[in-house]
């Protein structure tokens, strides 16, 4: 597979280019439109998302017959895997834009920049999903990170938002610095920035005894700090509850879904394509380390979620725990495991965004993110309450909701490799998780609101959006096509 030259690559790269164009257009439109109440900017960015979506599909179907294509002289790669994530990420971005439109906490006057930043971060994530070069990996990661810091701190009048941004950037800078150090070590060992070549060289060097396994291990661990911070895995997770709580809700939703997905894309690309060769794994068996990280991540996430009163924070911890479940699939980096991660990411996208949508609605209505605000929701707005219940039970992993099917794939992948203890830890964790999810359900259904209940009415648009999340959450598990999707999207280990 010969990498395409810069010029040749442009056609394959059209989704990203379109994204940049729309981001620029949004900034310009914002300068033109003076009306602060207008949502033209948002609609332009929505249109952008849709166009990019179409372009992603067109690009994918036009070029997928060529197999994986390496672009820009080996910097990025276009394959089913990256297309899969692009679709996923665009869905998340679209949803976030829609949430932002409805959210009352975002500052109306700054919308132009806001949407431009959203499109820019999407670009970064696209690149994270398709990078095959160390430099590209780092740059895309930094793009996403820097934009995230800004988005998290977007509510400049809100100290919590600023604090979130501060913690986020401090944490992120250290993590990415550490990662860059790891990358430099890797570069130093292999003498190349290309993932494929690194894999080949490392195998040779390890075989020749030129490189000690410890060196590779340290490089991997340092890199894991950067990746782990993106997917919020223990011990790199600590920023996420604070940031999720402080950031605007749509951004929290976006971070918990899109950022995590992109992180997993990077993780899979890096560890599976880069280090997935059996020779490497024999020399440096880092899977056990990942297993420990995975077990710790879900346990810490779930246990810390138990006493939370703030739903956003609770969902932050839950999102950490889900990162742990997802990591299980990555422990051994088998095709089954990767397929399970991809499938779970689809499911997670819908159920988690759905849950955050409800959080947005309640925050708008109650002005509160606390569990008390959910009291008696079932009588005030039954449909919203039922939708929330479905999301939460799906997050718990209870049949017939999609979350169960996702978990089942992950557990099956782990058990397949004989990691019984890890599967057990995961399952017991999902029992624990029921407890805090059910607290919200309890508040919604089993407790009365106290004062006389007034029916809260939501617009049909709200319900339409809600059903966009509810229906997949119920149906995905029963439809073959999603399993197929996730299975064919597993990247192939490049043949050496």
């Amino acid at each position: 597979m010969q990498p395409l030259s810069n010029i040749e690559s442009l056609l394959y790269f059209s989704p990203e280019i379109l994204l940049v164009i729309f981001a620029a257009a949004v900034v310009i439109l914002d300068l033109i439109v003076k009306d602060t109440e207008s949502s033209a900017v948002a609609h332009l960015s929505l249109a952008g998302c849709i166009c990019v979506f179409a372009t992603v599909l067109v690009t994918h179907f036009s070029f997928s017959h060529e197999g994986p294509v390496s672009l820009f002289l080996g910097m990025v790669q276009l394959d089913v895997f990256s297309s899969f994530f692009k679709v996923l990420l665009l869905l998340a971005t679209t949803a976030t834009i829609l949430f932002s439109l409805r959210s009352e906490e975002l500052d109306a006057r700054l919308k132009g920049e806001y949407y431009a930043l959203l499109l820019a971060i999407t670009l970064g994530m696209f690149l994270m999903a398709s990078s095959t070069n160390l430099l590209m990996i780092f740059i895309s990661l930094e793009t996403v990170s820097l934009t995230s810091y800004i988005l998290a701190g977007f509510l400049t009048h809100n100290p919590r938002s600023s604090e979130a941004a501060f913690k986020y950037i401090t944490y992120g800078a250290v993590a990415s610095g550490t990662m860059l150090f790891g990358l430099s070590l890797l570069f130093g060992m292999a003498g190349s920035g290309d993932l494929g070549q690194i894999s080949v060289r490392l195998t040779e060097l390890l075989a020749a005894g030129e490189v000690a396994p410890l060196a590779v291990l340290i490089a991997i661990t340092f890199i894991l700090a950067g990746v782990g911070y993106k997917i919020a895995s223990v011990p790199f997770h600590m920023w996420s509850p604070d940031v999720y709580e402080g950031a605007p809700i749509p951004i929290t939703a976006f971070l918990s879904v899109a950022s995590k997905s992109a992180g997993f894309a990077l993780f899979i690309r890096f560890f599976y394509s880069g280090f997935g060769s059996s020779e490497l794994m024999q020399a440096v068996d880092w899977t056990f380390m990942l297993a420990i990280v995975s077990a710790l991540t879900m346990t810490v996430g779930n246990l810390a979620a138990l006493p939370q009163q703030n739903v956003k924070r609770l969902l932050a911890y839950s999102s950490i725990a889900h990162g742990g479940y997802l990591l299980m699939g990555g422990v051994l980096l088998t095709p089954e495991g990767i397929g399970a991660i991809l499938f779970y990411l689809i499911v997670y996208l819908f159920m988690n965004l759905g849950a955050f949508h409800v959080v947005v609605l309640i925050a708008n209505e109650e002005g509160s993110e606390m569990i008390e605000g959910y009291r008696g929701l079932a009588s005030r707005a039954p449909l919203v309450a039922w939708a929330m219940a479905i999301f939460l039970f799906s997050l718990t992993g209870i049949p017939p909701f999609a979350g169960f099917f996702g978990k089942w794939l992950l557990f099956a992948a782990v058990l397949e490799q004989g990691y019984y203890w890890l599967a057990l830890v995961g399952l017991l964790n999902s029992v624990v998780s029921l407890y805090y999810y059910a607290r919200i359900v309890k508040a919604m259904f089993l407790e009365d609101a106290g004062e006389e209940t007034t029916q809260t009415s939501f617009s049909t648009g709200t319900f339409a959006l809600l059903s966009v999340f509810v229906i997949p959450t119920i149906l995905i598990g029963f439809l073959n096509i999603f399993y197929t999707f996730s299975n064919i999207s597993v990247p192939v280990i490049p043949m050496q």
Partner: protein
Amino acid sequence: MVVPLISLILLCPLAAFAIFGLLGLGNRSFPRQDYLSTAAMLIGLVCSLLLLREVVPDPVPHTVKWISLGGVTFSMGFHLDSVTVIMLIVVTLVSSLVHIFSMGYMHGDPRYPRFFAYLSLFSFSMLFLVVSDNLLGIYIGWELVGLCSYLLIGFWFEKDSAANACKKAFLTTRVGDVGMFIGMMMLFTKFKTLSLYGEGGIFALAASLNTEDMVWLSIAGVLIFCGAIGKSAQVPLHTWLPDAMEGPTPVSALIHAATMVAAGVYLTARMFPILTETSSLVIAYIGGITALIAATIAIVRFDIKRVLAYSTISQLGYMMLGIGAGSYVAGLFHLTTHAFFKALLFLGSGSVIHAFHAMHAHGHDDEHDHAHDDHDAHGNQDLVHAHGSEIPPDQDMRNMGGLRHKMPITFVTMLIATLSISGVPFVFSGFWSKDAILGGVLGRAMEWNSVHHYLLFGIALFAAGITAFYMFRLIFMTFFGEPRNQEMHDMAHESPMSMTVPLLILAVLSLPIVNVLWFNENYVKPPEQPHLHAPQHAHISPDIKTDKAKMTLSLFGISEAVAAEEGGNDTHGAHVDEGHHGHGPAHTIAMVLSIFVAGLGILLSWMFYHRRSLSAESVATTFRPLYNLFWHKYYFDEFYDGVLVALTVWKARLFAQFDGTIVDGIVNGVGTVTRDILAVFIGIFDNRVVDGLVNRVAEVTWAIGGRVRRIQTGAIQTYLFVVLAGIVLLILIFRVL
């Protein structure tokens, strides 16, 4: 003809009950449930009589598959032999008479139709038990009669005493039933069937068991007998029967005298072929002890029904003793005669109660009121006053006296029954049957040269004397002498026709006319007992045997009429029954002795209670400990209460029970103790420990959650520290592992 007839016998009463049950759903009832039930019983009686001719020597069970599993089958079916038919006749006859009697006795009761429906259900259950050819069927009938007994004892459930009594009856008998069920399990596991008869039946299979299995078979036999202990109120599970007298008197007559309690005897007789020496001896001892204990308790009772109740227990003990001693026919014979005369006694007492009761009802609107009003004022011989107040006034013999003029028919019929039960010779059936048992026991004793059986004979003989004594005490106190409660006496009157006619019929039946069936050797044949062998040392010459007999006789100071019987012999071996009257010297000896003790008993009774030449009070004072023992019914109830309560730390309650009223026995004992201690403990255990363990896990999880949360201090540098330390640790852990 057999199947349709038996089906008819069973279905008629069942239909009568079903009609009541179905209408009951709509809270209605058939207007003449009494006629319906009675008619059903009379049809049954006719059919039973018709069945007399159908008996064949080796009956084949008529069975259907009831539960068929892959490997085993439980079938239900009829087994019709002579004993079955006789039982059928007895049950249907007594039941019919009780039905008729109840029309008068229960007249005006608000739940009058229900009473008859229950009676029908009982009759069905009892008849089902009787005709069943397998243990499962018997067990089903067994439990169903228990249910009916429960329902009927608690018929006047508004009375707390009745409510307690019915519960006690059910539970006490169930304890025995569980034993029986375990026995059934043993038999089933061994033989893979519960059918008794036929090729693959238990009896046929058990016959081929070898000697190693004898211990096992003995245990199984005794366990099955446990059911009989409960149902037939044998020691130690007899305490429920006296309490069961809380039920209406016709119920006492039918269920707790004539039929249901005799079912235990019937069961034991049915199991006759699998009894071994050990199990037979256990049965005999329990029967004998029961006969004695119950009889002695009866001496000191004042409640007319309780006297009869203890008498029933005592007589049931006789029957058990008879069967345990191998006198199969004698045991069943006594069952039959006892059914009639005891039913008669109960119905007679019912008549008396009814007479008093009617008067009693005048003063009180509530017809079941049993408030203790002024009857304490009358001079009673009560030594332990606390207990006297328990007896309803209309059943208290101390309120009676001189009724023979007021109620002549009742008096005469009851007298006949009393003579019969007391063993007054020749013209009363009771004499013959009781004598058959005594003779059988003595015969076994002599034949086997068995100390056990001599002892049992002595007990039985002694009890026979006591029986005569307390029965005549009852007659004297009730019908003779001066009225002790003039007001009540004035109101008393003879009962209506519906009540007296059954009395008269039963009186006729208490004469030895039914003996015909039993005297016919070909009609009732005792089954073989393949596992019952005479002890090794029992093979002694007839001479010595005779000598033994003579010695025994001389021991009692009687030497007459022995020689005449010496020609008779019983060399049939151990498994040949000796109940047939007039055989062997043993019977002659027994007869003579029994006549003697009966006479003695009657005489003493006459002196104490009629002529009053002896003072019961002074005797009671003299033998105070003994008297107390009898009065407290050998402390059985207290024992059950006490032992269980003693487990508790709740001493106060214990004492309150000893000097307060006699709280009812095992049930409340078990109930109270278990609730207060055991079950509460388990309840706490369940909440605290089992649940607590889970909750503790949850708490710990929660606490860890709190801890994990606390790491999230909010200070960014802590987070960074965790990251970097985490990196170091991950690398180090990996290096170490």
